[in-house]
């Protein structure tokens, strides 16, 4: 059933089961996202898509909040822009993100988001944690220094490939992506080497071995294609 809501003063029509993010995207309204990826379930973790909804005293993530008839949504207020700036600066200061030597330079969602949000530098002190790189897999590599814990790889591995090789270990700032029970990726008996995690990664944390600075490009449409094919039996390229 169709519902009508207002996003940034614009009347938008959307389906009953749509999220605010979906409704906005269909109407051509841009909401920044990082942990959301078409084809994967949503977790509401990155908080970039937070929007103001009239009548709600707290900000709501657009990716997991269902639309309601007559909802009034603001996606780009001064307050939200300020919060998003802080969030992206926190991310850059958290681990070791050095674009100049990164495989994903120029093809990085985090980098694009920073540019889009007008970030010029981070106000926070860099934490410079000492993190490793797992190169034990013959085709792919996992660089924890560039990981932002969006868990897109975990969801791709679980929901689309069905292998559930990847998951999260530890909590808080010590949380890491692990393969199986923390073994080197190359020794994982469950990994099918399908590469869907690499497709899903927004930064340079997961990459094809052999790629050097700015060479890591990704084709993310495959994930959504697979999901639509499996669930709706429609092979839309």
């Amino acid at each position, binding site marked *: 059933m169709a519902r009508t809501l207002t996003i940034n003063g614009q009347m938008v029509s959307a389906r009953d089961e749509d999220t605010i993010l979906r409704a906005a995207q269909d109407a051509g309204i841009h909401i920044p996202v990082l942990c959301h990826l078409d084809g994967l379930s949503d977790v509401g973790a990155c908080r970039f898509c937070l929007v103001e909804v009239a009548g709600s005293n707290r900000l709501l993530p657009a990716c997991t909040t269902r639309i309601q008839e007559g909802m009034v949504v603001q996606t780009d207020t001064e307050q939200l822009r300020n919060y998003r700036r802080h969030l992206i600066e926190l991310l850059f200061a*958290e681990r070791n993100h050095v674009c100049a030597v990164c495989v994903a330079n120029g093809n990085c969602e985090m980098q694009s988001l920073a540019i889009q949000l007008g970030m010029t530098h981070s106000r926070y002190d860099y934490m410079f944690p000492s993190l490793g790189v797992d190169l034990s897999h013959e085709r792919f590599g996992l660089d924890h220094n560039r990981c932002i814990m969006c*868990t897109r790889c975990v969801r791709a591995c679980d929901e689309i490939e069905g292998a559930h090789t990847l998951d999260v270990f530890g*909590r*808080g700032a010590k949380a890491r992506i692990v393969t199986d029970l923390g073994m080197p990726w190359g020794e994982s008996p469950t990994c099918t080497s399908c590469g869907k995690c690499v497709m899903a990664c927004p930064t340079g944390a997961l990459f094809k071995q052999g790629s050097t600075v700015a060479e890591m490009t990704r084709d993310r449409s495959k994930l959504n294609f697979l999901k639509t094919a499996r669930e709706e039996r429609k092979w839309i390229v």
Partner: protein
Amino acid sequence: MNPDELNRIAQAEQAALSRHEHAINVCVGIACHSGGSEQIRKALEAEVKSAGLQGKCLVRGVGCPGLCAEGPLVSVEPLHRSPPQELLYRKVTPADAPALVRSVVREEPLEQLRIDANQPFFTRQLKIVLENCGHMDPERIEDYIARGGYQALIKVLTEMTPQEVIDALSRSGLRGRGGAGFPTGLKWATVAKATPGRYPTYVPPDIQSQKFVICNGDEGDPGAFMDRSVMEGDPHRVLEGMAIAGYAVGARQGFIYVRAEYALAVKRLRTAIRQAQRIGLLGKNIAGTSFTFDVDIRLGAGAFVCGEETALIASIEGGRGLPRPRPPYPAESGLWGCPTLINNVETLANVPPIITKGADWFASIGTEKSKGTKVFALTGQVKRSGLIEVPMGITLREIVFEIGGGVPEGRQFKAVQTGGPSGGCIPADYLDMPVDYESLAKVGSIMGSGGLIVMDDTTDMVEVARFFMDFCMEESCGKCIPCRAGTAQMHHILTKIQQGKATARDLRLLEELSNVVKHTSLCGLGQSAPNPVISTLRYFRHEYERKLVPELERV
């Protein structure tokens, strides 16, 4: 089990008790337990036996009477005198057993160990949730029944409709004791109205449409032990509250989620569940009605975030204890996607007395918007620390200075911290403020689950904020960016201030970041993590500013 059988058990137990002249109650709560109360109990039992007083003196273990600072505690309760003049003894050792038993026989108090049972610590309290703690053996269901236990359950099953139970709860004005203070009646009504969810297909079809009741006993605030004392001292009351909740919302399965560190509470709850099942107060067709309800225990693995309801549900389901965005609220879609009622231990423990004594009685206690009593764990720089239960609306001054006896000699009161890592510090100016949900929120703190830490003038408020931020940083699950990276940065800035390396710019950034973390975090942990910083900045800003260094001049 029907009402007559329940009364028969109660009468038999009361008769057995009244054959004795005195009850010697040994506190077997965890604090006194670790002080050796089990040995004291054995020594007293042996002493009573060798004096040939088995029929006269009853030695029993009881739940926490509250004054943990003076433990191990033993009380002597004369059973045939009214008003009962209870004698309370402090710091008892097994070696004191002969003297203690002699004093009971002679009916003379043992002065060297005695503490005044009429001191404000006891007289200023009002016990509803803790009324049985210290007066009955938590490991015997008969004791609980003899004190009127399970009457409320039988009453709702035989005389009330689920809607009447919910109406009673709403009328009582009871609000969630886990911290946020959501009206309990409203929550129950929402779950009762929700359509039962579809359980996974691998369970038998007859239980496929389900609702659940969860008791949240994952008490994680540092220095808080209210729920532990209730679970240890009166476990049946929690079960009874859950069963009434199950009847009201239409659930047939309950889970108690307890942190594994509470080994004694878990043991007592397990015993209580077994006993209640054996006499038919849990299980199929309770009290001969069609109502079926059972309770299982799930252990938490020591993550603070699992006290958050959605993370707790994920943990029961067997996943990582990660919160998820709400809505949908657990009342609509909770455990395995089914409508789920989650209440705190203390909230559920308030339910049976509301049913037996009436909603109006409960509503007559407390303030206009906060009804009933609240249990606090009073700790910190205060003379008498321990577990207290006070009516809502009591002032902080009464709690700290009358019940707690004030700060130790020669020191000055500085602030009281409520709500643990999610709460704030309240300075001396607000000591006369009534303790209720709204007043505490107004001064930048929260009711929280009930930790109350008193601080004196030697306390460094920046260090207090840094301590709580350290806790939140360690306990953040790491799912959302503001809580994971934000708490780490806040902790970093606070450490810089303490090391004398921070400038005014850092302090400004700390304030901005507090605001960001508060408003953008996914769950309650992150949303409330900046509270200790925000409240200490509000009232003790000069302490921060004193530690700042001038900004380096640009070259």
